[in-house]
């Protein structure tokens, strides 16, 4: 019997695994997808080879992308859920943006704008309580202030132009802009100073080399130890720490990682009228064999879509019917500014600049290579510009109606990738019960009934709809102030890149699945440690850092309740994930 089994090696699960392995517990970490251990060889960084949803190396599917199809999920509306299998989960392709949440979404907030947030679904804990956990994670990854390239300088010029103040802290206090706080090692040595590959080898180059491939997987600088790659996806930070815990933590014990292990059931039993988690059953996606292990504690970190699916497929209690409900996604949108000057859009970290608007959401500058810019230009709920608008096609400070950019206009738009500045709009969206994951009526796959992800795109709350329009207005104003010749708004269909709250923690047992410790209300010994556990959409900031801070707190709660341990955050100093002891021990794993 294990002490703890963690289901899913994405953004949150490896945090719990690393923290509890460091306490000496016997931890098993299971991941449905492959473990890319030789990323310099495995990740070509060509866009289709990587990002094609059918057979890219970053897809939602089993290891053998040449012979095995991806795992199909039902989306009964115009939408696309960008899931990603493999150790690191979606942090493999994330931009590593690591802002803290808006203080206004927590229970202790009493600022003058307290009513501006999703007040019905606040976190059942205070922002101040989470700060030590933020600081712990920020030191572990580590999170650093992002350097500037040309595209960031242009974005900042626009923010200055509309009179926004700069935020020089880690916390979001008022409408403001700033460089991103990114989980990216910043450039040192030759990094960011040359395009000569022979000059960009570790240790001559350290940190971000400005290659522009965050979304295709970070392999830079080449020849660095795996835990010293620039972007701090969990596959190069928390997972290596978990696997080497005995090397850097006094009393630590190496966690066990099993990849290609798709969990199909959380095992439970009835004890004294309560349901108690006892272990998991998984299927080896290569051999098809089924395995089971038991544990004292099970931690569900399978993501906002797969977590509810697994819960429901396991027959676990759902008395208030909130398992899978409350899916928040930042109701994201996209704008593209066309400039008459060089912008460096395709170079550098994918997002290193942002502006935050408490009670409204956030916006961030995003740089992408051409195929993904084509994707972003074509992903709309408003038809094709100039042809039809599906009853939407909002107008505003941007040029013409929002909608897909297609045909001759797309060719013109993409005639120089490095004269664009692109902006992602992150709406502070409300938790809504009808945006949800249910089990599909389509035939089950080899792992059981598949999920159906439902978004009522156009029926969101008035606050959510207004926030998205406000942010789009600000975005266009900033792009214009920066000097954009043209500004195009796409009006995205649901594209849940930021996903939250489908197994939410909350004050109210009537509309939450987890208590304030992230433990399931109706299943003893079952915790959730990923974005699904978040109480809400954080007010708009990118969720991974908060997920990881909360997962650190959850690890402490598990250790205290089930293993008689004491909390450590605040009393100890964190070890940074780039620690050379981790590098050295990795060669032996």
């Amino acid at each position, binding site marked *: 019997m294990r002490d703890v089994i963690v289901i899913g090696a994405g953004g949150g699960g490896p945090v719990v695994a690393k923290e509890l392995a460091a306490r000496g517990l016997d931890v098993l970490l299971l991941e449905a997808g492959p473990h890319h251990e030789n990323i310099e060889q495995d990740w*070509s960084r*060509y*866009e289709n*080879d990587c990002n*094609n949803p*059918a*057979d890219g190396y970053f897809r939602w599917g089993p290891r053998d992308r040449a012979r095995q*199809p*991806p*795992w*199909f999920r039902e*989306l*009964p*509306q115009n939408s696309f859920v960008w899931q990603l299998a493999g150790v690191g989960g979606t942090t493999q392709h994330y931009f590593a943006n690591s802002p803290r949440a808006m203080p206004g979404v927590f229970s202790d907030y009493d600022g003058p704008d307290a009513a501006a947030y999703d007040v019905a679904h606040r976190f059942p804990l*205070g*922002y*101040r309580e989470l*700060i*030590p956990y933020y600081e712990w994670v920020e030191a572990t990854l580590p999170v*650093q*202030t992002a*350097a*500037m390239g040309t595209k960031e*300088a242009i974005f*900042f010029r626009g923010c200055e132009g509309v009179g926004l103040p700069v935020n*020089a*802290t*880690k916390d979001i206090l008022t409408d403001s802009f*700033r*460089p991103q706080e990114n989980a990216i090692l910043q450039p040192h040595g030759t*990094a*960011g*100073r*040359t*395009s000569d590959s022979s000059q*960009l080898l570790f240790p001559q180059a350290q940190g971000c*080399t400005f*290659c*522009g491939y965050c979304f295709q997987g970070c392999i830079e*600088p080449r020849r660095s130890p795996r835990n010293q790659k620039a972007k701090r996806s969990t596959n190069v930070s928390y997972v290596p720490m978990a696997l080497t815990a005995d090397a850097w933590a006094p009393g630590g014990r190496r966690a066990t990682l099993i990849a290609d292990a798709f969990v199909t059931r959380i095992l439970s039993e009835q004890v004294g009228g309560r349901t108690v988690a006892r272990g998991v059953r998984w299927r080896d996606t290569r051999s098809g064999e089924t395995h089971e292990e038991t544990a004292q504690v099970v931690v569900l970190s399978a993501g906002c879509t797969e977590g509810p699916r697994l819960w429901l497929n396991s027959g676990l209690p759902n008395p208030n019917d909130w398992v899978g409900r409350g899916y928040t996604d930042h109701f994201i949108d996209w704008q593209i500014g066309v400039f008459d000057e060089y912008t460096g859009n395709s170079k550098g970290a994918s997002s290193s600049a942002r502006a935050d608007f408490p009670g409204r959401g956030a916006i961030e500058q995003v740089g992408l290579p*051409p*195929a*993904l810019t*084509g994707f972003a230009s*074509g*992903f709309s709920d408003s*038809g*094709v510009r100039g*042809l*039809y608008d*599906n009853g939407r096609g909002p107008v505003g400070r941007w040029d013409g109606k929002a909608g897909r950019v*297609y*045909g001759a206009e*797309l*060719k013109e738009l*993409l*005639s120089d990738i*490095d004269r664009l500045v692109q902006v992602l709009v992150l709406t502070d969206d409300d938790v809504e019960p009808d945006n949800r994951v249910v089990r599909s009526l*389509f*035939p089950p796959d080899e792992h059981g009934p598949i999920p159906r992800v439902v978004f009522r795109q156009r029926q969101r709350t008035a606050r959510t709809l207004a926030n998205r329009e406000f942010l789009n207005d600000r975005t266009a104003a900033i792009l214009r102030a920066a000097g954009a010749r043209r500004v195009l708004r796409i009006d995205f269909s649901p594209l849940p890149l930021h996903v939250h709250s489908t197994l939410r923690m909350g004050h109210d047992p009537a509309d939450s699945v987890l208590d304030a410790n992230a433990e399931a209300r109706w299943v003893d010994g079952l915790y959730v440690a990923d974005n699904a556990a978040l109480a809400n959409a954080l007010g708009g900031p990118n969720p991974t850092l908060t997920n990881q801070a909360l997962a650190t707190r959850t690890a402490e709660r598990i250790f205290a309740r089930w293993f008689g341990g004491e909390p450590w955050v605040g009393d100890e100093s964190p070890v940074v994930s780039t620690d050379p002891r981790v590098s050295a021990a990795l060669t032996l794993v």
Partner: protein
Amino acid sequence: MPDSLEWLLEQIARPALDLLAYETFAGLATFAVPGPDRFSRAQALTSASAGGVEAKAPELLMHTFDTYLALPDSYLQALAAAFRTGAADLGLPDSLLGGLFSVLETIGATLDDALELLLANDASIPAAIVCALLMNVAATQVRPTAVIGPVASSPFANLTWAEKGQAFQRIEQADPTLVALIDANAPQPLREGASGLLRFLGNVLLVVAPFAAYSEFGVFDRASRRATRRPVGWELSRYMPGRTTPADGWPEFIGYYQGRTAVQTAPEYAGGM
């Protein structure tokens, strides 16, 4: 179709439908990114520089949808039956009708006959063919005469650029006539979700097309996992001029905003709890 000739039709049924799929996806690729090719000419919107067809976007789109839409065979067959009119009134491709197969032309065999035969034989129907049939059904609703045009196997590819928008408007808005086709043919889960399925397919077809056109696929060697020359999309977008491989870095670092390399917790929140 005389029973005695079914074996002959069976030989070319699948290649004929593959051609239908290719020509339809070429019509989609040029809708997204026009070029100087015959499909762009057919939509009356061309471009002097290479476009989606030259980038081999149709091939990538077919491969992607065949793989990505991992629906059970029975569902794909049901959808193919629902959208069967997308192959109605289309002749078998001339390129397949030489020699012995000429008799099929003589008796007036059509693409619809080919599809009917495959469905009757319970053959698996690739998802790309299903998607192509859907686009062609919508196309014939927009302009019934599109069955005749410079692209023999695809009414959709014969539409003008603006008419293609009308076809996709019908798909994206789940036109009741398309919903009715699914309702009349498909098993329960597909029937219940007919409008959602159409909206999903409309969006995903439209978004993968420009991705495909601007990707490296057309010149990518899967064995070496490198581009053998400059991808069309890279040339069109002036992406990394001169390169065929992703760069390891760029001299793009210009400093830190206001020289600040680190920030801390705000004084309001310093000290935690």
